[in-house]
């Protein structure tokens, strides 16, 4: 072993710094059968972080409805896939970038958009629309203005440059988010239903290929940070922030889609949180194979990087692929045409192990399945929320209805969002039929899908106040509202994705919110025939022990049969009757 990996011994402090509990470290020792070196410990730490392992939520996520005749691929892959007819599939997912956006709003939000785009085009889809759900602190909190303008500029800066229309979203303000904003980004893409790409690696001997940008020291340990509660001094820690490069992402989309039109790819996965570690582990684990990586071949941006840094870097705009033997030159040609890095960095094996080589020596050797599958899973204690008794309307003060209406229209949660969506290119690609400002965004599907008549609608929704008061009702309501917004543009809901933003799950009342919201969400999804096909969990959203409002954001998509017949939201002329539906 080289000096960089020969550590003087793993102390309890080093274990704690890596966010592993003592009992978790005991499991590490058990799996390894020896003391891990620092590289190996780093790998355990990111693989078992809440962010990558879903250790607190897994038990409950399993109860969500995920099946339906339209579902081609449910949760577990990079994104969910549903059939939209005519041989086409919609691929979509939502993802949070909450903590990075609080630390550096522009880059945090921008790289959030970049990450969710990669999740979708990894599966073979061309992204066709973006959405975003944002929660900020009180409008008069000294930080809010800076955070709002940075986040909005970052989302626009990335999505506009890549050239994907941002067609809908949602923004709320509440003091509970003063120290912990939420930035949830969603992407919807389109692919031929029989050309979906998955992440399970296969074929011992097959080359493992790295493409995209070079690896730098970006966001090392970002994944563990995203799972740790914020302390007052978090601004001082100033972790290495990742900077997004939307131009490279655009090239990466074009190059990947070009390669996907050939038969070269066996498996593909983007390098998201925990970069090379989680992408290679997940691919190998899903395919039941081993992998050997030659870290000397990883394209590096900086000199003097260590195996630890290479494995844990969160540099953006990178992908990992397993390709068929003999397709190396074809692949290289496509990536070089688009001026992107390309390197064969390893190969698959039959050993069930991950072996990392560095300067001719072994820098780390870990069993794949025990590590990936035996990540901790907790059935954490929880206490249900007791909903408050319903308000008696008679107990409310009398108010002049017109005045009340004015107050409502002027309040930050209901005021026009035009100033936000005018900063997003919502028209690029030329297919936007319903722009932001309506109930849901709608884009027209290409002619080969329904002769140019069909459209895809999408919206994100959640009302955290309701979820706080009554998590079960709040969970139901989020799904119902998202679907109502689809109905309002003439779309039939197909499926949903969800982003579970909650506080510290080790507190029973927070865990109770999570459990309640998931129960309500599941019920509503079943009732409306819209299964959950993908999602993301963001826990530990707390500052100084105070949690955000429970915020299970729902992203729903639906099919419009005829885009020419979408009802408008405006009141078209005087004299028409207004009808109130529902109860």
């Amino acid at each position: 072993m080289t000096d960089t990996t020969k550590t003087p011994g793993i102390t309890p402090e080093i274990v704690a710094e890596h966010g592993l509990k003592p009992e978790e470290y005991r499991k590490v020792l058990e799996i390894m059968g020896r003391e891990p070196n620092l590289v190996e410990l780093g790998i355990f730490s990111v693989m078992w972080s809440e962010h990558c392992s879903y250790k607190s939520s897994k038990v409950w996520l399993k109860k969500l409805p995920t099946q339906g005749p339209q579902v081609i691929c449910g949760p577990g892959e990079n994104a969910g896939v549903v059939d939209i007819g005519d041989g086409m599939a919609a691929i979509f997912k939502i993802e949070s970038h909450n903590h990075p956006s609080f630390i550096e709003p522009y880059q945090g939000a921008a790289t959030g958009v970049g990450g969710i785009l990669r999740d979708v085009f990894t599966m073979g889809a061309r992204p066709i629309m973006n959405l975003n759900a944002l929660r900020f602190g009180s409008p008069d909190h000294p930080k809010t203005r800076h955070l709002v303008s940075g986040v909005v500029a970052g989302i626009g800066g990335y999505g506009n440059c890549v050239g994907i229309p941002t067609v809908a979203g949602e923004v709320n303000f509440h003091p509970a988010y003063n120290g912990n904003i939420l930035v949830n980004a969603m992407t919807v893409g389109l692919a031929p239903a029989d050309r979906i790409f998955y992440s399970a690696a296969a074929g011992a001997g097959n080359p493992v290929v790295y493409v995209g940008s070079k690896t730098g020291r970006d966001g090392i340990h970002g994944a563990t940070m995203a799972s740790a509660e914020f302390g007052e001094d978090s601004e001082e820690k100033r972790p290495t922030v990742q900077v997004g490069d939307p131009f490279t992402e655009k090239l990466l989309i074009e190059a990947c889609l070009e390669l996907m039109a050939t038969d070269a790819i066996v498996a593909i996965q983007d390098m998201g949180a925990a970069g090379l570690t989680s992408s290679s582990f997940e691919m190998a684990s899903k395919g039941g194979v081993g992998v050997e990586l030659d870290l000397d071949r990883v394209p590096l941006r900086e000199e003097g990087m260590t195996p630890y840094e290479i494995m844990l870097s969160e540099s953006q705009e990178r992908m990992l692929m397993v390709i068929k033997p003999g397709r190396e030159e074809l692949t290289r040609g496509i990536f070089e045409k688009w001026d992107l890095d390309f390197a064969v960095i390893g190969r698959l094996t039959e050993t069930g192990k991950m072996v990392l080589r560095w300067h001719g020596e072994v820098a780390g050797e870990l069993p794949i399945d025990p590590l990936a599958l035996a990540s901790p899973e907790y059935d954490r204690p929880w206490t249900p929320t007791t909903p408050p008794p319903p308000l008696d309307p008679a107990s409310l003060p009398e108010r002049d209805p017109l005045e009340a209406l004015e107050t409502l229209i002027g309040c930050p949660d209901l005021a026009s969002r035009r100033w936000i969506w005018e900063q997003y290119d919502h028209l690029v690609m030329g297919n936007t039929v319903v722009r932001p400002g309506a109930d849901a965004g709608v884009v027209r599907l290409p002619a080969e899908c329904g002769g140019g008549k069909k459209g895809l609608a999408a919206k994100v929704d959640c009302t955290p106040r309701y979820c706080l008061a009554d998590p079960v009702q709040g969970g139901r309501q989020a799904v119902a509202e998202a679907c109502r917004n689809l109905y309002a543009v003439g779309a039939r809901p197909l499926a949903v994705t969800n982003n579970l933003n909650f506080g510290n799950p080790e507190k029973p009342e927070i865990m109770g919110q999570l459990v309640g919201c998931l129960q309500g969400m599941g019920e509503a999804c079943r009732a409306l025939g819209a299964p959950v096909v993908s999602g993301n969990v963001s826990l530990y959203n707390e500052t100084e022990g105070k949690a955000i409002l429970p915020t299970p954001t729902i992203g729903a998509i639906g099919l419009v049969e005829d885009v020419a017949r979408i009802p408008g939201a405006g009141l078209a002329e005087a004299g028409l009757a207004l009808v109130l539906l529902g109860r």
Partner: protein
Amino acid sequence: MKAKVHVTLKPGVLDPQGKAIHHALGALGFQGVEEVRQGKVIELELAETDRARAEAALDEMCRKLLANTVIENYAIELTD
């Protein structure tokens, strides 16, 4: 008093602009360019005539607005 504030990306932070310029110079046939980083200069004209006070004010401007200290370093130069 005139001042210049130089804002540069911290070492190790990705500089997409520098990278693209580097690439474009290569495509234009310029050989031997080894690295390119892009930064900003903000030139200010201040009413303040006391150097120490000007520097203190500029430092505060940098921390509050001119530089994004999460990813950028800044340097202040009084030019007269």
